């Protein structure tokens, strides 16, 4: 009986020590802990942070966002603009017209450009030129799911004050 009590005491002490050790992590390394995903924003979320981007895209047409990243006066009174065109994933932006002839380069995503009646497949790195006054459509259908199509346009527009 005496031994049983002492055994129980030792067992209890061992358990207590073990629990302290595990619970407090007293100076010991703790394993990698669970870091579950954070909850998603609600569809009607309005609690936006005060962060404001320096040069955000602005809506420039149906399914199309646009922003100017550079502008300068070039030789011969030509204005050179760098524009980023952002086509929403899985969408098509029609009737895009630029203020002058342009060279375009796909920076991300995949899709199709239709310039007049000439369709051309697009992938990251594709470059192509657009004549002045052309109307084009850009379709985003990225091979990498849900990555937007971003096209940088070097536009050579008629001159004027930048």
């Amino acid at each position, binding site marked *: 009986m005496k*031994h049983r009590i*002492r*055994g129980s005491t*030792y*067992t209890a*002490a*061992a358990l207590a*020590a*073990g629990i*302290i*050790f595990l619970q407090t*992590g*007293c*100076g*010991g*390394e*703790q394993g*990698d*802990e*669970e*870091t*579950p*995903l*954070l909850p*998603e*924003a609600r*569809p009607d*979320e309005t*609690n*936006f*942070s*005060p*962060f404001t*981007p320096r040069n955000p*895209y*602005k*809506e420039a047409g149906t399914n199309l*966002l646009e*922003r100017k*990243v550079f502008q300068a006066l070039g030789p011969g009174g030509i204005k050179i603009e760098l524009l*980023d065109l952002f086509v*929403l*994933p*899985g969408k098509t932006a029609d009737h895009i017209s630029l203020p002058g002839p342009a060279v375009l*380069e*796909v*920076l*991300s995503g995949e899709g199709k450009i239709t310039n007049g009646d000439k369709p051309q497949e697009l*992938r*990251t*790195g*594709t470059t192509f030129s657009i004549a002045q006054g052309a109307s084009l459509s850009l379709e985003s259908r990225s*091979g*990498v*799911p*849900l*990555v*937007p199509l*971003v096209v*940088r346009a070097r536009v050579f527009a008629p001159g004027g004050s930048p």
Partner: protein
Amino acid sequence: MPAEAKGESAMMRRGCIRVFAVFAACCALMACSKPKSWPMFRHNTARAGHQSVKSSLSDPMKVANLKVVWTFSPAGAQGFYSSPIVHDGRVFIGNGNGFFYALNERTGAVLWQYPTGTPLTSSFMCNPSSFGIASSAVATRVNGKEAVVFGGPDRSSGAHLGDGHLIALDAETGALLWESPAVAQVTGSGFNDLHEQIGYSSPLIFHDRVYIGIADHCDNPIQNGKVVAVRLSDGTIDTSFNYVSTSTRGGGIWNSPAGKDDDLFVTTGNTRNGNVSQPAVNHGLSVLRLNKDTGNVVWQHQPVPYALDDDPDWAAGAVATDTSCGRVVTSQQKDGWAWSVDAGAGGVLWAFPTGPWATSGFQPGDGTVHGDTDYKRPGAAWGGVYLGVMGGLDTTTNLSGGYTQLHALNVCAPENRRVRWIKDVPATGGFGYPLGPPSISHGIVYVGTNEGHLVVIADPKVAPSSGWRCSDPSVPLPTCAILGSLGSVVRLVPDPAILKDIALPGASAIFGEPALVGNRVFIADTSGKVFMLEADP
């Protein structure tokens, strides 16, 4: 069973219980009495940058009272480009002036400095890594003695221009235990001279060896990257381990090797500078797993091919973590792209931002740019979260947009849940080092800035965020919300709260990491000051 045997069995059982009880109690007491420490750069050999012990620094309520307790600045101070480590009540750090200091953790008083005579400097002074001691130290035991090991230049060998050596000191007295032979040689500054250096690489102590990465002073041209192993017992070079990055030059190791169990990981710099064509052996611009005994390459992930090498060194080191999707190695390259790789076989888990390159690497003509941009600082890992300074979703359109941002990424999540949160940290943008390496304590992130601030940020798991923002910083919120509902990578993500933004008194830019030790933070700046801050227990 006979009664006698039963009695013996019961006695043995009781005996075992007693032994176990005493052992468990001793373990608990030892664990509780063991001083909390940050014994090496990025805290552990996996370079996770995570204080694994819960303390006031992991309590968002207690972080609010974090305050500076002491400041130390040595005589003749230059910048601190190494980071402090803390072990057994002592802070250890090397300065750009070429001296290595041991400080009292509680008071900041100098315990000893090494050397007492000629400082450890090289003849090169063209890059912060060339000034004095830029290698953060590691605490260890050498032949039973508490010791501290670091790398630095020493003009006593070779051409007397400051060959790189590993140095082990008695942690208590600062006495020299051993100095390795030259592991980085400097023979001059000509094109064909050697100008290797240890630079920012911090030693990794792993399986009785000390591993150190070798890069170069000032490029012009770049040197052949190496990992050298010396024996922990006496500092002699272990020639059974041999790793060089290329067959000519390039692939410098600008960071600290990482180790987990038997696996050794490094990342390497570029190869194109000084080569007329791609070296036959080219382990540059890669994250690599090396055999810890031989240095043989087990696998290599090299997303940027030689043809696109415009100097996007892989300057941030590898971070190895065990996650719900297995053991992974994560890091980001100077071009802003982050990569997560299966540590076992080397397969790519993901690229961030994603694109065709996630499966096939970057290709000439794919429109991506891989230049000398400044995503150089190692990240941190907290469970399945990787945290660092990287380019972000708009890397392709805005090369420098991520310099003052911290991205937290869910390592094992589907592509469209990769971004956990983004925080713009108050710092001066532009090139250079706007933010130091972040350290984390159970979801609370500590980072130094180039304005001399220590900024403390809370993962939304531990404190409410300040609202939602877009995972692509340039996309307006209404559009972002719509895209998120469609399942796009462009979606609303939390903008975590800043718990504390402390202007450290008289501080200049902060280059190194915060060391988180119990309820204390140790951080050093480039004007030559070490700060200790403390939160109430």
